[in-house]
């Protein structure tokens, strides 16, 4: 078929480099996938019982767009900031949270400033329709620098997107840094989308929403109860102030009506188990992380600063990446995040084994 219309659609697609940004596999799909964001912990039987029980009881119909009330309440309770359940929008995973916040708040804000190094999903979300984007320089931890944030705000940016911890390195802003960023945002009457999805894996990742006067200008986003074995169930959240909420809820309705009920009921149960089981998971991963760090040191790799126990980021040459690939391991390439020469490894026994190939 000769179709100019179709060709124009395809040409527009090929020229949209943001949309074509390759994303790392979002989760482990084989035992040697080191590009995942969290280890696949076993799913608790109670989660299965609650979710399947809800389906058997007939909760198989549409539910409210922002989520079932008990899950919204559980997420609000889990967040340390001053959000109520009415501020919580349950999303079909983390990427939907990125998309809704960036596109909906970003449109009204006239654009968004994002770190030069950020999760590829951020670029993809930006690329779905034209949006003014400013890139902010990052420091050695791959976090946007204070100077870059200040410059963006002085240039008129009204919305910034930050990850803390970084999705690449696991490094987080300190409390003093977060406080300083909050002050800058308030001084410029600007807002922030704060990706805190890795925060549960770190004991040093304060949320900007907890800073005085910041709840009203912050949308926090993340995976719901990470480590519960629900990564493939696609369940995330946005918590946002009243003024930002309606357009995102409306767009959520337009895109999906609601989030899958089986996932929502599972997450309700995961919330109950989270407080008692997550500390043990973090401790377990902390020990495993020490082993992976030792293996990296033995391999002569330079490790980037990071506090999240689920991942480590190391500098690695193309040849070393190839060695791992040849040995059957895949990693998250820093190039996809905007940081060539760095790779992210899932903290796991497999990661320690993989690094032995480089020693």
């Amino acid at each position, binding site marked *: 078929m000769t179709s100019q219309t179709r060709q124009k659609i395809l040409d527009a697609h090929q020229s949209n480099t943001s949309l074509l940004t390759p994303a790392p596999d979002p989760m482990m799909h084989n035992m040697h996938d080191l590009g995942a964001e969290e280890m696949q912990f076993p799913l608790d039987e109670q989660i299965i019982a609650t979710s399947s029980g809800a389906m058997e009881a007939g909760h198989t119909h549409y539910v409210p767009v922002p989520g079932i009330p008990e899950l919204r309440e559980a997420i609000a309770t889990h967040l340390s900031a001053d959000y109520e359940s009415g501020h919580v929008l349950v999303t079909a995973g983390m990427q939907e949270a990125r998309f809704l916040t960036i596109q909906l708040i970003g449109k009204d804000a006239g654009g968004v400033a994002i770190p030069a190094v950020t999760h590829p999903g951020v670029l993809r979300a930006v690329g779905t329709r034209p949006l003014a984007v400013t890139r902010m320089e990052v420091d050695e931890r791959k976090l946007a620098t204070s100077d870059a944030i200040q410059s963006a705000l002085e240039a008129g940016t009204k919305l910034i997107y930050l990850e803390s911890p970084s999705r690449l390195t696991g490094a987080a802003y300190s409390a003093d840094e977060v406080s300083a960023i909050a002050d800058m945002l308030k001084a410029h009457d600007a807002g922030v989308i704060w990706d805190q999805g890795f925060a549960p894996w770190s004991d040093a990742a304060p949320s900007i929403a907890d800073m005085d006067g910041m709840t009203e200008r912050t949308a926090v986003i993340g995976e719901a109860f990470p480590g519960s074995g629900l990564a493939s*169930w696609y369940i995330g959240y946005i918590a946002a102030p009243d003024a930002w909420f309606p357009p995102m809820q409306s767009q959520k309705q337009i895109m999906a009506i609601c989030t899958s009920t089986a996932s929502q009921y599972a997450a309700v149960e995961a919330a109950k188990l989270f407080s008692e089981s997550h500390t043990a998971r973090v401790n377990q991963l902390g020990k495993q992380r020490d082993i992976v760090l030792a293996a990296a040191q033995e391999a002569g790799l330079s490790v980037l600063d990071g506090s999240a126990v689920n991942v480590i980021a190391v500098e690695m040459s193309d040849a070393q990446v190839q060695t791992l690939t040849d040995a059957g391991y895949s990693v998250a390439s820093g190039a996809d995040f905007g940081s060539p020469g760095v790779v992210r490894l899932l903290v796991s026994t497999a990661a320690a084994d993989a690094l032995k190939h480089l020693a």
Partner: protein
Amino acid sequence: MVKEHKKTGTEILYAMIAEARQYDDAIIMGRGDPDFDTPEHIVAAAKEAMVQHAGDYVPPEGLLPLREAIAERVKRVNGVDLDPATEIVITNGGQEALFLMVAAILSEGDEMIVPEPNYNTYHDAMKFTGAVKVDVNTYPDTDFRAAPEDVRKVITDKTKAMLLVSPNNPAASVISPEDVQAFIDIAQEHDLMIISDDIYDLFVYDDYTHTSFASLPGGKERTLTLNALSKAYSMTGWRLGWVSGPGELMARVRDLKAAVSGGTSIIAQYAGLAALTGPQEPVDMMAEAYRRRRKIMLDALNEMGMVYGVPQGGQFVFADISFTGMDSSEFAQKMLTEAHVLAYPGAAFSEARKDYIRMTFLQPEEKIREAVERMKAVMKNMAGS
């Protein structure tokens, strides 16, 4: 920083649902949510997947076994050959499928022709892209037939696509095979894309038949089609649908899917696999129930003197209530407040349809009868006052 949010038509409808739920005896005949629960074997398969596959990797385009099952279904039901590797993307329900198709094809300033009345989400999805919806009116005296000759009249140099829905929502008309071919001919002639919403393809009545645009000559290469399991298998809460189309365009849909939501719940996908590959008797049972309910509802509407397009398919009827002297918003609100019956006001679909209401037959027969009796009583009071 954030501008004031103007409520969409859908949000108005959702507010009415919320109000209806305040009444213990409410009969909700507005929303397209079947009253049947998801069949047991599908729930059982989901539970099994929770045990066996909870942590499996999910590619953005969905699990291959599910895409293969969809290809088989589309071949069997719609007569279209699809390559499951490249021509199908799994979505969070038909709604996300529609959004991805619209975002894949349209850009700011583009025009898309849509027979009117139409489901308000089409407009909402187009609004995201900045594209413009161009309506082509249809009327109850022709059972809301979308006439190809009327579509021709509104084509401009900005027209990029036609969105064709059969059976239609809310008008319940079915596009005949001859008209499907005529629309394809128009698309070829003017180099337009076709977006086809086939979500009600299993629900057609009397002697009507559903014809997929991709099944006729010249159709497949310029058509993106959506479908979902929500209506046919009573799986609205699971959120599982798909887009199919030519591989090159589907690559764009896949990238958009990755950008918008990343992937689709693995549990919903295994539930969907069981729906498509398991026993189909529940679908037949539901379709038969809708046939009976449709007759009950049409008999009642006739008794009330309402003018409507005979629903040739779908799960609802779109009826003219102008004889009451009220517009649809007033009428629907009165029925909700006084009869505790929720019907959707046509005004929420478009301003031009403020004389219409949409009523589904997604309630048990006794409830439909009860709803109709309550409505009659309110209308009798109206006539008497």
